[in-house]
């Protein structure tokens, strides 16, 4: 008898709540554009915020409302943009070339010394604010790994000598690391750009030679050597115009400090996890 009573009471309670919930679901239904859910499914879901909206669902809501373009997500490639365009029923935007983050410094712990020993917060911005950081070169990488913390895609890891290494296959060009670096060493470059001047130092050549073994000394040899005229000197620093460069590699050979490099696809394998 007690068992029957228990079953009836629980069953009735469950049924009453079930009916109440069913009625409430109808009564309190919130109208939402079904396309929004579809777009959320298409987006990467990392909620990195590189689009400027609060997370992937925020971007999806803005795309549906017409406030954001269908290719508003800088992380996912053209394929996703065209899928979103078909969900929205509009023409896909023209594809732009994929970019990747690159670290414009090679002054690791062997090649560039320290001015003092820093023992504060383990963040680049914190170190940079203490007398301009411990690194001998005031333009060089501080090696505290703020960029690796900023990356939501695991594409940057600290290498063995205190320099971050970008895994270009994983990089989504969201730009979080670019913002995280207080020295502007990380920049987004076209993924097809093989030759880069991996230095940001605007100091005169003689000073660079004293502080870093692999910095750009602004000698101008590459400017003369480049058959395309794609390299210019700006503030003691060689700058390659990506649009004109055809990656012939002559400047890489001629550079006396080896700060111009040809992309080495084997580099990411050397990354070790230290954070």
């Amino acid at each position, binding site marked *: 008898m*007690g068992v029957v*009573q*228990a079953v009836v*009471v*629980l069953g009735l*309670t*469950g049924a009453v*709540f*079930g009916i*109440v*919930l069913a009625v*409430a*679901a109808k*009564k*309190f*239904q*919130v109208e939402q554009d079904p396309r929004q859910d579809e777009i959320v499914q298409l987006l990467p879901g990392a909620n990195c915020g590189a689009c400027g909206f609060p997370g992937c669902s925020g971007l999806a809501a803005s795309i549906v409302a017409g406030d954001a373009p269908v290719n508003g997500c800088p992380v996912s490639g053209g394929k996703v943009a065209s899928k979103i365009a078909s969900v929205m029923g509009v023409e896909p935007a023209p594809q732009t070339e994929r970019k990747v983050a690159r670290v414009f410094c090679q002054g690791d712990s062997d090649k560039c010394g320290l001015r003092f020993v820093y023992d504060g*917060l*383990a*963040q680049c911005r914190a170190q940079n604010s203490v007398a301009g950081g411990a690194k001998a070169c005031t333009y060089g990488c501080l090696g505290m790994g703020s960029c690796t913390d900023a990356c939501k895609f695991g594409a940057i890891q600290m290498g063995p000598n205190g320099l971050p290494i970008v895994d270009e296959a994983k990089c989504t060009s969201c730009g979080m690391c670019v913002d995280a670096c207080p020295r502007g060493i990380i920049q987004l470059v076209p993924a097809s750009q093989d030759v880069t001047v991996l230095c940001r130092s605007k100091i005169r050549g003689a000073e660079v030679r004293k502080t870093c073994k692999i910095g750009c000394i602004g000698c101008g040899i590459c400017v003369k050597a480049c058959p395309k005229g794609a390299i210019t000197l700006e503030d003691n620093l060689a700058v390659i115009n990506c649009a004109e460069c055809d990656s012939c590699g002559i400047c890489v050979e001629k550079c006396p400090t080896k700060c111009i490099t040809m992309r080495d696809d084997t580099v990411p394998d050397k990354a070790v996890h230290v954070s």
Partner: protein
Amino acid sequence: MGKLLVIFFGGVLLNNFILSRFLGICPFIGISQRVETAAGMSIAVIFVMGLASVVTWFFHNMILVPLGLEYLQTIGFILIIAALVQLVEMVIQKSSPPLYQALGIYLPLITTNCAVLGVTLLNVSESYSLLEAAINGVAGASGFALAILLFAAIRERMELSEIPESLKGFPIALITAGLMSMAFLGFAGFRLEALFGVM
């Protein structure tokens, strides 16, 4: 009045749900990386625990006790809390989108949280009146809020500290939680009944 104060401060400090009773540990560890989200979770828990205490009190005293079915407490309370939270979520989503933005993501997380179930069962075992049960629910949740906010603040600070490699992340968080729990044991010596004149 004295007894209500004893229940309230007892729930917040002496019998803190997380640090003394060890209920609701999963949100305590899981949603305590940022003070902001911890605060959102706390408000949701206070809301749900207060509401659940009241509704289950009626369910227990109006339905279970007259029928002599007290042994159905646990399963019945789970049913009621889960349905209630769902209902509240729907109502909030419709009636107040800003509140839903702030609370919405936390509500489903606490549908079957052990702290919520725990407070309702404690209300029964202490045979509290309706008002006492409501106060106990809010007090338990306030204790939860106090613990998770303190913990989140410590964890935010810890992110900037140099922590030995092997202790980074959850290990140091669990050690911190243990230390906080020991610190809260200090409150166990309080004689609240004497303090508020209820003997």
